[in-house]
């Protein structure tokens, strides 16, 4: 390898690491989307800074589908404000999955406030004490020009029960002249409707909706994430060439189609970044430049079809069992157990003269594997847990069309299995 080539190789590795680092850093990605003045970032920042500078209380809900960047933007805002107003913001983080119980939530609040202000925390304090402590702290912090930010992740889970926590927080906001912001983060769009009416009346009804970015923004974002900086340790001519090639890829229609199909199956930015990560990882280090091929090869790994794949991994016996179950369903037997399936299996063997016949214990193992794959499932849920597997009612969890589709693409599918399905379908019609 020539020296020049090695240098190019080094540059490629360096830029690859840079790009990978960027793709994993949600701050970098969302910072780019936050620049416009109409973005949720600036709205949220405005609410925060008005609370800090004008000493007022606020409450706001961040709503949006999962992966739309609610938490990322919130963290970005909090991080920026902590830099801007050092030592003036206390962030209390609660998660609905952990603290949906009011007592533990109050305890967590007290603990976090104690840690933040280097006070001693007592585990023994009662819920009332913790509530009082929280109110007293809010007042004190208000007097000291400190803002307390309550971040309630999975906000909808806090609305279970009597909503004592939300009532206490929002009531404190309307009665104490403190500087506090309560932020609820939820993927349920109707989260504010879940509030009890007196809690709802105290809520400020500010909602920020997080929507996926437009396609143009997405393309810009991708180019931004993948392009190399000109003024860095990476050789400049290499970076310029890299960026130019990237630009031709991005404007290519084929590339846009790939992105479309990727976006369609999983319309979140995080997922898109994963896709880019895959694509970048297959970068050819010898040439050192991205090509359309990289993206093409990365696409299938993003559009996996778990049911189809597990069907492809099944053994012949397992396929037969699935086919038998299918037959039983066509016969409008709504509830059947392993034993019924075994009977059907025997019948199929007899009538179609399939090549081999397995004993019951082997079939049971195959049956259990299918259960684990999630291709079939018990219908009674957990009820008959102590019942023997043989007699518990089961159901096929994949539809006929999926099964036929799966069989079609199964490499060594026995002709019989295929024909049994075909036969039955023609029977139906």
């Amino acid at each position: 390898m020539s020296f020049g080539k090695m240098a190019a190789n080094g540059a490629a590795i360096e830029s690859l690491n840079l790009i990978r680092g960027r793709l994993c850093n949600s701050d970098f990605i969302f910072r780019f989307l936050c620049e416009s003045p109409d973005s949720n970032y600036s709205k949220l920042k405005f609410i925060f800074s008005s609370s800090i500078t004008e000493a007022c209380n606020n409450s706001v809900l961040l709503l949006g589908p999962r992966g739309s960047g609610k938490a990322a933007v919130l963290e970005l805002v909090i991080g920026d404000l902590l830099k801007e107003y050092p030592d003036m913001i206390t962030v209390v983080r609660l998660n609905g999955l952990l603290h949906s119980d009011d007592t533990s939530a109050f305890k967590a609040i007290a603990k976090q406030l104690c840690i933040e202000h280097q006070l001693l925390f007592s585990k023994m304090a009662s819920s009332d004490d913790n509530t009082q402590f929280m109110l007293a702290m809010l007042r004190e912090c208000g007097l000291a020009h400190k803002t307390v930010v309550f971040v309630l992740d999975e906000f909808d889970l806090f609305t279970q029960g009597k909503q004592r926590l939300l009532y206490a927080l929002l009531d404190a906001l309307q009665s104490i002249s403190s500087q506090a912001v309560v932020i609820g983060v939820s993927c349920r769009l109707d989260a504010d409707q879940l509030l009890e009416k007196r809690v709802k009346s105290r809520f400020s009804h500010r909602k920020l909706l997080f929507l996926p970015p437009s396609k143009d923004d997405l393309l810009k974002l991708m180019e931004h994430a993948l392009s190399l900086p000109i003024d860095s340790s990476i050789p400049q001519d290499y970076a310029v060439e890299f960026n130019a090639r990237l630009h031709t890829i991005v404007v290519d229609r084929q590339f846009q189609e790939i992105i479309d199909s990727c976006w369609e199956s999983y319309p979140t930015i995080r997922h898109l970044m994963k896709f880019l990560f895959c694509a970048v990882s297959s970068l050819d280090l010898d040439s050192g430049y991205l090509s359309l091929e990289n993206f093409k090869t990365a696409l299938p790994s993003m559009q996996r079809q778990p049911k189809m794949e597990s069907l492809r991994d099944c053994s012949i016996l397992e396929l037969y069992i699935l086919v038998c179950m299918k037959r039983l369903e066509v016969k409008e037997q709504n509830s059947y157990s392993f034993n019924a399936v075994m009977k059907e299996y025997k019948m199929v063997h007899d009538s179609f003269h399939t090549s081999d016949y397995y004993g019951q214990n082997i079939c049971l193992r195959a049956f259990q594997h299918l259960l684990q794959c999630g291709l079939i499932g018990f219908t009674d849920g957990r009820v008959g847990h102590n019942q023997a597997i043989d007699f518990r009612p089961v159901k096929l969890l994949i539809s006929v069309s999926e099964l036929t589709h799966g069989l079609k693409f199964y490499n060594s599918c026995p002709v019989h299995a295929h024909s049994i399905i075909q036969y039955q379908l023609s029977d139906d019609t």
Partner: protein
Amino acid sequence: MPSPRLFKPSVNQWPIALEGLGYGMTHSPASIAPHTPRTATPLRRSARRLHLALDVVEEKATISEESNVSKRSRSNAKEQGISATPSKVNPAKTNRTREACDSTKKTRRKIDKELKEASFTPVSPDQSESKRRKTGRNEPAKVITRVRVKDQEGEAKKKCRDVPKKKVFYRVLVYDGGKFGIGDDVYVKRREDASSDDEDPEVEDCMICFRVGTTIMIECDDCLGGFHLKCLKPPLKEVPEGEWICEFCEAKKMGKEIEFPKPPDGRKRTRTAREKLLSGDLWAARIESLWREADGTFWCRVRWYIIPEETTAGRQPHNLKREIYLTNHLSDIEMESVIRQCSVKNPKEYAKANEGDDVFMCEYEYDIHWHSFKRLSEIEKNAGEDDNDEDWEIPKDAVLESDEDMDYDEEREKSLQTRATEIAANSGKAKFFGFQKIGTKRIPEHARSHAQTELERAKATLLLATLPNSLPCREKEMNEITTFIKGAIHGDQCSERCLYIHGVPGTGKTMTVLAAMRNLKSQVDDGILKPYCFVDVNGLKLASPENIYKVIYEALTGHRVNWKKALQLLNERFTDGARNGKEHDRPCILFIDELDLLVTRNQSVLYNILHWPTKSSSKLIVIGIANTMDLPEKLLPKISSRMGIHRLCFGPYNYQQLQEIICSRLNGIDAFEKQAIEFASRKVAAMSGDARRALEMCRRAAEIAGYRIKSTSESVSLGDKARVVMGDIDAAIQEMFQQPHIQVMKSGSRLCKIFLTAMVHEQHKTGMAETTFEELAATVSRLCTSNGEAFPGWDALIRVGCMLGECRIILCEPGSKHRLQKLQLNFSTDDISFALKDSSVLPWLAKYL
């Protein structure tokens, strides 16, 4: 823990250091000028009229000559001088007579002999004032003589064995012609050798002519120098409005070198106490307690003020010239070192104060251990006063507190300070320890920018947390509550003791009751009404309904017990009326917010609480608030009968009322257009009649207006257009009532849209709301094939379905059920057709909607 910065001398260094000074300070009583010069006309703060004491500045040549003499000898010299004066009484005797007159006023103790001895009794003119107080706290004592002679005091102590060796505490003390009370702010001497301290002019000279005079002087807002109006060039006729900066400061700001006019020869420019304080030559402190030691010296415990320069943060640019901070540093000092009073005010009072030179502004408290600032709360002040009342109630018949007690107190205080780190902050027992740690290291600049625009003021006053001055539209209800409570307190046996208030949220129920209670409290203070206890409980803030007993008992007695014990004790108190303590005689008003939360399975909590008022001996009055009108009907008959017929309904506000509420809050602030307020109130009245909603909406509209103005004013300067208009209200309404699901559906991916369309199609076809994934997948594949779309596969489809389920656009079972998963739309099909009809990406969807 950082070690406390000791910038004040500790207590035991003080007396010696100060005594010497004290002697140097002797004025003839005539030289004590009135403290606050009266102004004839209301002037702004910086304008001062000089009072008429023209002979204030005494040249004290002898003292300055003596300044190099050793302290002890100087004091001796003074002693002799004093003892030589015939007008002074023998200190020993003074002590005793003083003691005697204290006693006459406060106790019956050992007056007989002493009174006869006392040939003269000092007048006590403030008798009337102290009698007026309801609690009859200890009477202010007047002591007119000034104790000076340390050595002889010692002898006096030995001589007068009959003088009790106890401290005598005072509330008001007249010392050396000045009257000092607890809570007063005073100047305190700092250096013993500062010759300039000898003069204590209470008026300052004009910066130009160096004379004092009766004419009005104006104060420069920058250097705080005083100027005669006529001395200025050009002379001013009257004090101008707003800020005024003297020519020297103005010139200094322009960058010119300017020399202040030199005082004429032979006349030294005297510094006022204010100047000395602000330059650190004097201290200011607030008196916390006043007492006389057993040896007859007068002491006071003071809480120091500190000037910005002495804090770790230093003087910050936003500090006002006359700003000082209150510290948490307490010391005991001898009254000897106290010079005279000054006045320290909070920002609001300070803005109004317009007389005198000794006015300072204090907004923050400074923690000397943690070097942090905290705003002084006004609430705390009130609470503090209340505390005082109670504290002083206890020793009313025995003003004397033993030294041991005092020592014990000090010890305890000390131990609390050291232990503060050990006690957990959130354990309620210790009333939240360690709050002194909370504070800002520097006061942020934005907190001090008081120049608010109209819009900002409007936003601040529209906050839910700001307590309105008046409660419009609820006068009728307020009167009803007041008459109910008054009737119940006066204790007619037949009258109702229970009031149930109901109404939808945000109609001012709690606020009205609390306002009524405030009115009643002021009536109690005026002596019109009998005193009562008031217990305020919120059902939603209790960990469990039974905890209410605990909370009530703690509020009544201050003791913490578990709820079972509390129930038992409360039962004893209310039903049996057993013990007839003084406290128990008071009527008790129990105010329970969110009453419906107390409903338990067997409803025993509500029963107990509502049962007590029916007992004649209980003197308990219950006011309950809940949202539902028919709460009593939902309860057991025995409870609903006890809850009584006395109910009060708070209806939702109509739009005129909402308008009035908003207008009353915005009184004097011209930030909203009239129609805009009307629009907002009409909208809210049509929706819920919730005042909170209306206020929040207006606040949001003000924010939007501020944003709009900021973004447009860069190009066009709109001077007077900083008002909230209809458009802003409309935007706020849009935002408040926005339907996020429509937007999410509109912006969803193609597959989402197809999925939803298939759901609608399926529902139309079958007429059933519920469908399974299997059927839906079939429909989707049919739609796709007939419209030339690629079918994405079942796995992609089920993921989309689960995502929609997470957002609650559809309701669905867990995705693991796959084919059998049940799906249902969460919104009407109309909403979905509205959202998806004109989708540019998939125009064919409209066919199926």
